[in-house]
């Protein structure tokens, strides 16, 4: 048991774990995460299967990585606890009495005699130390006085604060991973959706995309209303970086898209031989429109936002973004189909029209309009407050550890034959030079006093 404790509180284990966790983290950045097994096999051959079996394909969520982190946490806990107890004792119940050789081994020290009484020296020294914000502890023996003066004691605990902060962050991470949930909800304007695990609903009142003058997207804004018991509770316009928080849930502007099912397309029809001829028609997918002054109907059968032909020669939409919008149209003269084919908004000259009957007409896909969708990420992250608390501890700890160095001055005053001998030494947890100069000032002022 004792050897196990010793094993877990060893700094060597901490450093070993730190190195292993670092190497594992690196590995996870070089091997793409969360892809399908096929992709790994295609890219790494037989190694792909091995990666999958070793859970390297989801390294940061793998059991072995989690086990490493737990081991690391255990190491930090044991290290911190075993060091904390003696430190707390030293801070709150220090040993004031000491041997003069304890001082003589210190790097900062001084020893001299003064022709004034013990009490007077003591009073003088205490006044000087107090004025420099030292806290004093004193012990008196027949002809001796022991003084222990310390300041910025929290500096001793800086590293402990840091370690406690890291533990709180790890706990927060585990709580987030186990109890957190995230879901993308797609809204059209006016849609009301229930939130899994919540007693309220969410309505999208309005969604708009703002653009810069150069056409870049400036922001997506969704006006959301929380509805509880059929009553609207509150409304907020959310945008990227400005989510809505309500009852432990947070709603983010996550993405956007279009509802392509009811797209309406604008088609310009021209005659090759008659440049003055131009007809503009607007048709919703699945419907037909008559070409003015001609006995011709145009119907739009399909609209595809991102037209591409795959390796099996099928027409598909590569994405839901309008990267290559295309419409499949048919032209009818009475009951007779005269033409059919694809027209492209980005490639007007590349129409793939198959004509059943000689025709002079040409078609251009000029514009299209679809309802915009707002994708809202609903998230519940019960660990997040632990993270912020842990970060606060971490930063306070770093500040104490680096910039709040504890200073300790130990003094033995001994009276003999009307003279007082002063043996003093100083210990600093960091920046010894600064203590050295303060120590010298204190000693100088003590020498001068009478």
């Amino acid at each position: 048991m004792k050897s196990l404790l010793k094993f877990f509180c060893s700094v060597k284990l901490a450093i070993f774990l730190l190195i292993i966790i670092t190497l594992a983290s690196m590995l996870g950045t070089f091997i793409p995460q969360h892809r399908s097994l096929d992709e790994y096999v295609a890219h790494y051959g037989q190694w792909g299967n091995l990666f999958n079996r070793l859970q390297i394909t989801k390294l940061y969520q793998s059991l072995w990585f989690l086990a490493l982190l737990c081991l690391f946490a255990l190491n930090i806990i044991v290290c911190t606890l075993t060091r904390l107890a003696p430190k707390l004792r030293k801070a709150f119940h220090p040993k004031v009495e000491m041997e003069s050789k304890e001082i003589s081994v210190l790097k900062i020290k001084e020893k001299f005699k003064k022709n004034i009484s013990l009490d007077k020296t003591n009073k003088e020294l205490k006044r000087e130390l107090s004025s420099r914000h030292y806290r004093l502890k004193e012990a008196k023996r027949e002809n001796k006085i022991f003084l222990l003066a310390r300041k910025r004691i929290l500096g001793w605990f800086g590293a402990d604060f840091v370690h406690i902060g890291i533990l709180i962050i790890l706990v927060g991470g585990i709580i987030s991973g186990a109890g957190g949930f995230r879901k993308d909800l797609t809204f059209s304007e006016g849609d009301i959706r229930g939130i899994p695990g919540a007693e309220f609903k969410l309505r999208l009142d309005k969604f708009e995309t703002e653009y810069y003058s150069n056409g870049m997207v400036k922001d997506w804004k969704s006006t959301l209303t929380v509805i509880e018991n059929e009553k609207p509770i509150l409304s907020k316009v959310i945008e990227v970086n400005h989510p809505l928080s309500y009852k432990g849930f947070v709603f983010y502007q996550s993405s956007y898209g279009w509802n392509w099912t009811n797209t309406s397309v604008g088609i310009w029809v021209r005659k090759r031989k008659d440049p003055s001829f131009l007809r503009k028609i607007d048709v919703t997918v699945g419907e037909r429109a008559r070409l003015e002054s001609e006995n011709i109907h145009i119907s739009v059968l399909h609209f595809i936002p991102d037209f591409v032909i795959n390796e099996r020669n099928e027409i598909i939409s590569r994405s839901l973004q309008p990267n290559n919008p295309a419409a499949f149209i048919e032209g009818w003269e009475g009951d007779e189909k005269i033409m059919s084919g694809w027209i492209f908004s980005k490639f007007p000259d590349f129409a793939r029209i198959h004509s059943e009957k000689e025709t002079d007409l040409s078609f251009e896909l000029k514009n299209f309009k679809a309802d915009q969708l707002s994708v809202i990420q609903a998230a519940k992250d019960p660990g997040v407050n632990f993270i912020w608390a842990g970060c606060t501890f971490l930063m306070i700890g770093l500040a104490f550890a680096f910039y709040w160095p504890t200073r300790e001055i130990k003094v033995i005053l001994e009276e003999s034959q009307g003279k007082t001998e002063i043996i003093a030494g100083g210990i600093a947890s960091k920046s010894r030079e600064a203590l050295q100069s303060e120590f010298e000032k204190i000693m100088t002022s003590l020498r001068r006093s009478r």
Partner: protein
Amino acid sequence: MNESLLFLATFILYIISAFYYFSFLFKKRENLAKIGFSFSFAGLFIHTIALVLRTFESGHAPFTNMYESLSFFAWSSILAYVIIEFKYKIRKAGPYFMLIVIALMALASSPLMPKEATPLVPALQSYWLWLHVSVTLLGEAFFAIAFITSIMYLVADSKERKGIKSGLSSGKLDSVSYRCIAVGFPLFTLGGLVFGMVWAYYAWGRFWSWDPKETWSLITWFFFALYLHTRIVMGWKGRRSAYVAIIGFLAALFTYFGVNYLLAGLHSYA
């Protein structure tokens, strides 16, 4: 006066500074180092104006693409150097450090880096941009000084073993490296990790997603944590400590550049 002209002026001042610093190295006249320092200080001044101007011209923080962030990193490096030089007088490190700054400025001015200020994409429209990037890069600037002083330590140490003394003792270089990391580490923790997590939480909806950039800043942090623990608890000093500090800075550099060009992720701005 516009920003690109001021940037050029800054670049020239840094080059002159490096020139004087190097002639100080060869001619060993303290005076030359002082001139070098004045030029780098003048460069810092003009550079500051350039960054302020850039902020007004673009209407956002001056570190939203690679050109801007390189320029800002060069600025923070000079700032960090001026502070360390004032406090610890490490003139001999000046010439080598100026090389890093000039490399950053040269990279920023390379034609590969688009210079025009573009409006901010939605994800970057946050005041966390200011806090996250500036504090992180300032922290990394101190790591850069520790990198130089650690390399100089290795050289000075092997010379001292042969009995050759040079201007800066290995002991001093070792302690300056430590002090730079003692400044850089809290800054990097605050800016890179803490502010990064807070911003990720507001922008992406999760404080940590093991994105390559996030993971690499954690790796960088681990290296410097390793530096501190081996040094403070295990009493490592000198050569081994210097190697850890050097690797730590290389990890920081990879986080800064490598991840953008070699690994794909969420964090695709700069």
